[in-house]
């Protein structure tokens, strides 16, 4: 199980964040290679591990930068709204700190924060262990 501990002075203000890379799914990349089409460059973003998110979120605009099309729609509830309709995209997320790739659905929506462009939700967290050690400004995230 890959596991890593991060020490960050801004843990309380910012929350547990990871640098991740978004890419097109493997199946699509194989098609592009066969057709000699250029593979979109991975997009590097900062993702917040968010236990209050039922599912993973990607900032609207990032799937479009990768040229992806939606594979579904979903209604979301937030503190300020209910039944807000969003598109879902099947994407590949690479976690460089772990050398691990996760492929799954990401719900696309606008995000207020300029630096956080993805939320890692409980659909991914169900495969891991998160230990938040606030008094040491550190967190440990392990992936099963």
């Amino acid at each position, binding site marked *: 199980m890959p596991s890593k501990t991060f020490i960050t002075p801004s843990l309380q203000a910012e929350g547990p964040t990871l640098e991740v890379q978004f890419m097109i799914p493997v199946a699509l990349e194989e098609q592009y290679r066969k057709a000699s089409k250029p593979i979109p460059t991975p997009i590097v973003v900062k993702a917040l591990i968010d236990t209050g998110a039922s599912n993973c979120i990607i900032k609207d605009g990032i799937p479009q930068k990768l040229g*992806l*099309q939606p*594979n*579904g729609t979903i209604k*979301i509830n937030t503190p300020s709204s209910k*039944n807000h309709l969003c*598109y879902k995209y099947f994407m590949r997320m690479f976690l460089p700190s772990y050398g691990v790739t996760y492929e799954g659905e990401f719900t696309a929506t606008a995000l207020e924060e300029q630096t956080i462009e993805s939320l890692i939700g409980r659909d991914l967290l169900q495969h891991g262990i998160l230990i938040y050690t606030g008094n040491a400004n550190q967190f440990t995230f392990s992936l099963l």
Partner: protein
Amino acid sequence: MAVLDEETKTYQEHKQELLSKAKGKYVLIKGKEIVGIYESEKDAIKIGIDKFGNVAFLVKRIEEIDQNQNYTSFLIKVG
């Protein structure tokens, strides 16, 4: 929401039939065509990519009442 409108309409038109034979599974729909029913969402999406490439298609869990996703974060900018 223009993209996937046709697929959503197709799902609604066939919802009762799908519920009776495949509740809890995942349906892959392109336009007016129900392409197939699959055990997992990932399987359905990968088959959709293999069959149609990088175009919009609908993969949806077949259930009586659609489940919303829930977020407590104020980072999400909606409404």
